C-alpha cells in the first residue's frame, strides 16, 4: 500500500517542465524578426547574379550568331561585325599565361609541400603568395609594361600573356600545394623505403596522385585570368584586325567590352553584351571543369 502511494507521488511530483519558449517572450520575437531580416538579405544578395545572367542571356543572346566568331569589330557607324579576333586573342594570351605559370607554380609548390614545408623560405613564400592573390590586376599590367613593353618597344600578346601569368601564379602555387599535401604519408614512406630519392617520390608518386587537385587549381586560375582586362590595357592594348604575330597589340574580349561600353552606338553596345555572354560562358566552363576534375580525388 505504502509503495503504491510512493510510486504515484513520484510520478506526479516531477512532471517534466515545458521547454518551449512562449510566443510572446520578447527575446524570441527579436530572434524571429532577425531571421526574417537574414532571409531578406540572402535574397537581396542573390538578385545581382540573376540580374546579370538575365541581361547576358537576353541582351547578349539576341545577338548570337556565327558572324561573331568570323567577323572583325565594326567601326562607329557600321552595322554587323563580330569579334573573332578578340576571342582568338583572349585564348592565345590565356594559353601563354598557362604555359608560363603552371610549370613554375607546380615546381614552387613541390618545395612548399614536400621538400621543405617548415623552412623560413616556405613560410615567407606562402605568405607572399597569399598577399599576391589580392594584388590589383592593374598593377600587374603596369609592372609588365615596365619590364616588357618598354623593353620590346611595342605592345604585344607576349606582354599580355605574362601579365596574366603574374596574376595566375599565386593561385596555382597555393592550390597545388594544398593538393600535394593530401597525398597519404604512407605512399611517400613506401616509396622512400623502396629506395626512391625525394625527387623520384615527387615525380612518380605525389604529382600523379595530386593531379586532379592540381588541375582544379589550374582551371580556377585560368577562369580568374580569362576575364581580366586591366592588365591588358597596359600590355596588349587592342587591335581591330586578325592576329598576325605575337609581337603586336592584340585584341581581347575584355578590352573589347570596355571599349564598346562607352560608345554611343547601339550596334556596339549589343556586341558588348554578346561578348560578355561569351566571356562569362568561357569563365563558367572553366569553373565547372575545375569542380568536375576536383571530384575525382583519391
Amino acid at each position, binding site marked *: 500500500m505504502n509503495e503504491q502511494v510512493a510510486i504515484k507521488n513520484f510520478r506526479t511530483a516531477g512532471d517534466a517542465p515545458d521547454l518551449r519558449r512562449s510566443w510572446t517572450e520578447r527575446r524570441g520575437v527579436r530572434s524571429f524578426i532577425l531571421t526574417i531580416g537574414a532571409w531578406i538579405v540572402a535574397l537581396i544578395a542573390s538578385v545581382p547574379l540573376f540580374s546579370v545572367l538575365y541581361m547576358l542571356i537576353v541582351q547578349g543572346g539576341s545577338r548570337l550568331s556565327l558572324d561573331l566568331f568570323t567577323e572583325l569589330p565594326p567601326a562607329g557607324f557600321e552595322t554587323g561585325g563580330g569579334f573573332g579576333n578578340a576571342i582568338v586573342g583572349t585564348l592565345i594570351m590565356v594559353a601563354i599565361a598557362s604555359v608560363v605559370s603552371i610549370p613554375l607554380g607546380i615546381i614552387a609548390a613541390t618545395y612548399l609541400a614536400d621538400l621543405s614545408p617548415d623552412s623560413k*623560405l616556405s613560410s615567407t613564400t606562402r605568405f607572399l603568395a597569399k598577399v599576391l592573390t589580392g594584388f590589383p590586376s592593374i598593377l600587374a599590367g*603596369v609592372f609588365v609594361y615596365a619590364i616588357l613593353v618598354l623593353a620590346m618597344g611595342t605592345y604585344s600578346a607576349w606582354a599580355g600573356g605574362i601579365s596574366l601569368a603574374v596574376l595566375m601564379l599565386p593561385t596555382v602555387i597555393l592550390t597545388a600545394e594544398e593538393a600535394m599535401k593530401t597525398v597519404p604519408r604512407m605512399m611517400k614512406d613506401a616509396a622512400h623505403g623502396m629506395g626512391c630519392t625525394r625527387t623520384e617520390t615527387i615525380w612518380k608518386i605525389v604529382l600523379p596522385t595530386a593531379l586532379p587537385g592540381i588541375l582544379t587549381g589550374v582551371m580556377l586560375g585560368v577562369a580568374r585570368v580569362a576575364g581580366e582586362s586591366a592588365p591588358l590595357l597596359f600590355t596588349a592594348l587592342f587591335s581591330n584586325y586578325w592576329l598576325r604575330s605575337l609581337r603586336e597589340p592584340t585584341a581581347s574580349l575584355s578590352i573589347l567590352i570596355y571599349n564598346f561600353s562607352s560608345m554611343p552606338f547601339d550596334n556596339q553596345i549589343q556586341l558588348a553584351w554578346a561578348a560578355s555572354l561569351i566571356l562569362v560562358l568561357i569563365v563558367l566552363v572553366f569553373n565547372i571543369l575545375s569542380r568536375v576534375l576536383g571530384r575525382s580525388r583519391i
Partner: protein
Amino acid sequence: MVTSAFERAAPPGSIAQPPSSNEYLTDRGFRALAVAGASLIILLVAYILWEIGAQAWSAIYRHHLGFLISTNWNVADEHFGILPEIWGTLYSSMLALLIGGFLGLIVAIFLTQDFLPLRIAQVFSTIIEMLAAIPSVVFGLWGIFVVIPVIRPTANWLNETLGWIPFFGSSLSGPGLLPAALVLAIMILPTVAAISQDALNLVPYRTKEAAYGMGTTRWEAILKVMLPTAAGGIASAMVLGFGRALGETMALAMLIGNSNQISLSLFAPAQTLASLLASHFPEAGQSERQALMYAALVLLAITLIVNMMGTAIMAVTQRRISGRS
C-alpha cells in the same frame, strides 16, 4: 655509397634499389630548381616594387610629396596631383565595405548557422561563388545599363528633398560614386562571405552547444557567442575585402565618372587611383605617363599594406583557434 648491408636488403633483381649516382644527381638538381622556384615569388614581389618604383622615380623627383596633396591634373601645365583620387579610392572602398561587408557577413551567418538544409545551403553557396567568377568588365556593363537607371529616380528624389545633407548634395546624372560603390560591394561580397564562412565553421561545436544549452535564442547565440569567437577571422575577411575593393579597376572606371573632384556627395562623379590609371594611360604622353607611374606606386603601397595586414590577421587568428580547440 652502396654498402653491403643495402646490397643484402635489396638484391640486384628486386624493384627496391638504393638510388644510383644518376638519380642522386637529378635529385640534387631538382631540389635546387625547386628552391629557385620558391624564391621566385619573393623575388617577383621585390622586382615589382623595384620596377614600379624605378618608373615612378622621375615623377617623384619632379613633384615630390606635393603630388599627394595637390588636386590638379593638368597635362598642359604638367601639374599633377592625386588627392581627389586618394579620396575617391578610400571613400568608394569604405562605402563598398560597409554595404558588401555587412551583406557578406549576413550571408555567411545564413549559410553556416543551420538556417537551410545542407543541400540547399550548398546550392546557395555555389550561387555566391558564381558571383565571384563574373569578370569585372561585365559588372561594369551591367552597372551602366541596370544599376544606374534603377537608382537614378531615387537618387534625384533624395537630392531634391534632402539636398541639404552633404551626402545627397548633387544630382545623379549618370556615373557617380554610389553606383560604383554598389557594384563594388557586390564584387567583394563573395570574398567576405567565403572567408567569414571559414571563420564561423572553425568555431568549436562545443561552444555553440554550450550557448544553446544555456537557453539562448538562435540570434542571441549567433550575436553574443559565435560572432565574438569568430571575430578574428571575420576581421581578416573585412580587411581582405577592403583590399580587393581598393584594387578594383574596370568596373569603377566604367561607373565612377572620371572627374577630379573631392565631394562628400554620394551622387557626384569621382575618380579612384585605379580608374585614373585605366582611363588616362592609353592616351598619355611622356610626362603624364610618369605621373601615372607615381600614382601606381601609391596604389601599390596602399594595397600591399592592407593585404599584408589582412593575411597576417588571418594567420594569427587561425593559429589561435586551432590551438584553443
